């Protein structure tokens, strides 16, 4: 497995796999019983645990042909439900470095961003075509280019989208927000000074 994301995320290249279905929630990505941990380290083996058990080796995350894939192709509202960052952590620790789908749940998207994992969108019929290509030939190599906003194979290319703010954070390597937030400490101080509920509601707005 490649190392975890760091620095600017401009290009993700490698094989892909598909988890099809609308509204796949974070309880399915990582069932709650695996949240009983004080570290994320072991989550990679537990990703989609119940779905994988149910499919008895036939889940894409178990199939030999998809091992080593790092781009996950999904459908609509992927990652809905619980805010658990354990979900993207589990995907990342399995090996996923980018997700492409029709749409993403808000909190899941933000959690991925904080890990340097781009969640890119494309139109439903395009996603369908992309998923069919992945299924037909799991050995095919894909290239997700955040500069050109394109997902490509050697033969074809599709436009993908991400909101401009998160896109810029990824491309510039500033997706790990902590240091930027800390840099603005003095502005936080100034804001707190005038925040009504922190000063006996005295501040004139």
């Amino acid at each position: 497995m490649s190392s975890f994301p760091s620095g600017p995320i401009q290009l993700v290249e490698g094989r892909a796999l598909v988890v099809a279905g609308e509204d796949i929630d974070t309880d399915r990505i990582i069932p709650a019983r695996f949240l009983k941990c004080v570290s994320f380290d072991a989550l990679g083996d537990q990703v989609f645990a119940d779905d994988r058990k149910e499919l008895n080796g036939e889940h894409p995350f178990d199939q030999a042909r998809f091992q080593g894939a790092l781009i996950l192709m999904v459908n609509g509202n992927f990652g809905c439900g619980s805010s658990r960052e354990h979900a993207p952590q589990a995907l990342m620790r399995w090996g996923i470095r980018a997700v492409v789908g029709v749409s993403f749940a808000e909190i899941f998207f933000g959690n991925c961003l904080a890990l340097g994992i781009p969640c890119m969108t494309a139109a439903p019929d395009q996603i369908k075509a992309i998923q069919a290509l992945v299924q037909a030939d799991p050995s095919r190599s894909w290239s997700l280019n955040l500069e050109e906003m394109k997902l490509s194979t050697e033969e074809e290319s599709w436009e993908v989208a991400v909101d401009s703010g998160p896109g810029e954070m990824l491309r510039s390597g500033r997706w790990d927000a902590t240091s930027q937030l800390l840099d603005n400490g003095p502005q936080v101080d100034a804001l707190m000074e005038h925040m009504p509920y922190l000063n006996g509601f005295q501040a004139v707005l």
Partner: protein
Amino acid sequence: MSSGTLYDKVWDLHRVTELPGGSTQLFVGLHLIHEVTSPQAFAALKDKGLTVRCPERTVATVDHIVPTISQQRPFEDPLAEEMLSTLERNCAQHGIVLNGLGSGRQGIVHVIAPELGLTQPGMTVACGDSHTSTHGAFGAIAFGIGTSQVRDVLASQSLAMNKLKVRRIQVNGQLTDGVSAKDLVLHVIRTLGVKGGVGYAYEFAGPAIEVLSMEERMTICNMAIEGGARCGYVNPDQVTFDYLNGRVHAPRGEDWDRAVAWWSSLASDADAVVDDEVVFNASAIAPTVTWGITPGQGLGIDESIPMPESLEVGERPMAEEAYRYMDLQPGTPIAGVPVDVCFIGSCTNGRLSDLRAAAAVARGRQVADGIRAFVVPGSEQVAKAAEAEGLDQVFRAAGFEWREPGCSMCLAMNPDRLEGRQISASSSNRNFKGRQGSASGRTLLMSPAMVAAAAVHGRVTDVRSLSTQPDL
């Protein structure tokens, strides 16, 4: 783009600066933490050599992993014990108040912060839990965050966020007898879909919302996230102020008067602009029950499991999956579906008024043979208040178990869980596959009164069909 809404006003007030990437640095007024999503955040702080910037703006409790039968330490489950002791250590080390077991203030994080008066209008509230939307009931911007963001709030008391659009959910008319806030929000989610709210904050407004109590408003905002909306809110009004007045952390004296004046100014202006508006008629809503595997697969109690051809093409694959997983056939009336387990509790419906509504149904009746039914108060304060008015006795006499406070079987990170293919009637918020602790377990979401009715009959039952005074 919205303007003049409560969301716009509170957002603007908390905006620290625009970040180079195009996100906004947003100040967090109240940060709530619990044992599940905070340990890795504290570990990350340590790795980076950072401290907690405003320990007094973070408040902790323990809820997800606590057992509800015996809360004796150490817990039987060593992993649960490790999580709580890690939280205790982190809070002690960083000077964060922990409302722990037996403190009189412990409970589900979204129950205790309102009841302690911590949640107030005009605040931004963040917590590593998606149901943080609950706190929007006070006219706050409240949203769930992941663990990396918990780390960011601990370190900087702020977050990198992108502004949402605002959709007003205008609810006209009034709910009819036997129909609750839970039914209303299940109806909204059923209508707009589980992804309908992605990218939006939901402003719940209109005559049907204005008459709701704070606890009912919390139920509605709690489930905004199930409709895809990261935030839900209700404009603050006299109901809000009356609820807050006198609570432990609420302002007092002259502060109180100034606070009320300020809070009042935050409500959306009469000429506020929203990005979208959807109108509902409350009087047309029936008790609502989910039949499938997303909170959007809901039905009025007098309806039947939908036929595939009656659904939009895009909804059919999920419906097919739900028929199979739930083992419910299209065309089957939802009323009468047998249940095995009945659970009353959770951050959605574990407050005093919820327990009263369920107890009113349970009083003088008996849980049906073969049904396991239990009631889990949302907090130690809720438990105490309920016991003071004898609700525990009502439930016990009816054959319900009366438990200690916690998240319990909403998500089964504790000993409370479904076994095998069991099907539950549950007052919680999610019916996802495997949600209640068994990989093949099944969940029917409904109001607390409807859960009590299901417990008494052993099957899904229209609570309106039960007389309020059963023969004793």
